[in-house]
């Protein structure tokens, strides 16, 4: 019973955590143009599974915010919408990347400290 609760809560929080990084992940992959499905496949191959229902609306939102540019192109008989980082998006990605590095270092430090304190306590 308790294990179930732990599992469920972990799932919820992990999902929230992933939601935070998805934007950065998506932006990082779009320095070269890609269409939705290829982007999803690419993320999946690199170990980040993104829900279809999340990805496509997210791409639209990022485009509305001016971070991405897109256009329709017909190839192999089917039109596809290609997305690519805009100039604005590139700058934002650069800032976000350095911010990510900072967060990563901070969190790494915090988590190692906690581990050490725990080890000392044991």
């Amino acid at each position: 019973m308790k294990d179930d609760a732990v599992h469920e809560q972990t799932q919820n929080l992990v999902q929230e955590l992933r939601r935070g990084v998805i934007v950065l992940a998506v932006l990082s992959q779009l320095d070269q143009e890609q269409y939705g499905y290829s982007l999803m496949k690419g993320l999946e191959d690199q170990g980040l599974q993104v829900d279809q229902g999340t990805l496509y609306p997210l791409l639209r939102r990022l485009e509305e915010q001016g971070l991405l540019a897109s256009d329709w192109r017909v190839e192999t008989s089917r039109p596809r919408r290609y997305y690519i980082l805009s100039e604005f998006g590139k700058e934002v990605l650069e800032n976000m990347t350095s911010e990510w590095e900072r967060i990563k270092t901070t969190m790494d430090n915090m988590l190692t400290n906690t581990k050490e304190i725990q080890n000392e306590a044991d």
Partner: protein
Amino acid sequence: MKLINLYLDEIRRHLPPRNREDILKEIRSTLMDMVEDRNPDPNQSPKEQIIKAVLKEFGSPREVAAQYGAKNYLIGPRLFPAYIQVLRIVLIVIAALNVLGIVVTIVNQPTIDTGIFDTIAEIVGGLFSSLFTGFGIVTLSFAGIERTTPEEWRVEIDQKWEPEQLLKHEDVKKVSYTGLAFEITLTLIFIALINFFLDRIGIYYLGDSGWVSEPILNDNFLRYVPWITAYSVLDIGLNLYLIRTGFWDKWASLSKILINAFKIAVNFAIILGPAVITVTTNALQNLGGFDLEITARELSRGMNFGLDVILGLAIFGLVVESLKIIYTNFIRGSGENIEIHVEKQD
């Protein structure tokens, strides 16, 4: 491909109008990519099984559409068009009634004295306060409808969602959310009117101290109020159920017929019962012109007869509607027929 088209049609119904076609185009392109990716033999057209698996994975149309519409609206994108429509009608009616009042005042005041400006200021004030009241009632009704179809219901339904349903429901009469929301709002206003503001249904005129209304519905009408309220509440219940399911199933059809029977019975009771309208001489006097007791009596009789005719026509309409539902749902379209029909098309 038929299944994908039906799927996209279903998503279309739930998407906000902005960028709708473009979003659908992108979903179609993605679905085709997914299907192609899983098709073992690219030279053959993909099996229906593969398409169904892809659709199942992509999610129920409502879920997909929900991802594109922003959430936490007071009134969400699904109901917003209906909201605007109802709001427009209600505000126009209120404004028209007020303008009518202004005209009546001016006509009734042959000499222009200084007091007329005060009166006009009062009327304009009244116009704004009644417009705000109308706006408030409509907005609250829609916010209520938005919240009475809770997220959990949708999730509960959609977890069971299967692509098969697209084919099954193809023949079934789908509901119009706009129409349903419209009906629910009007019914709520109607319930409020007959329960709390019955004395406001009447002849309106401008007295010395602003608007005065002379009620025309007499005490005989009061005994019908609980019954009318009851069937109105049932109507709202049915409409909420329809918003939840999205189409007319057998239960909804059966309920509609029973509610119609109930309404017919109440209408008959009113027609056969004692007169419910009384026009007092007081009201006529203030309208100016015909301040005769005989006129009032004749007018009462005329209006009662008019009401009976309206109720009679309503009964006729309800019977026709019920027969139509019985025919389409219980005689012509049984579940089996739909299955056979679908197989033939494939």
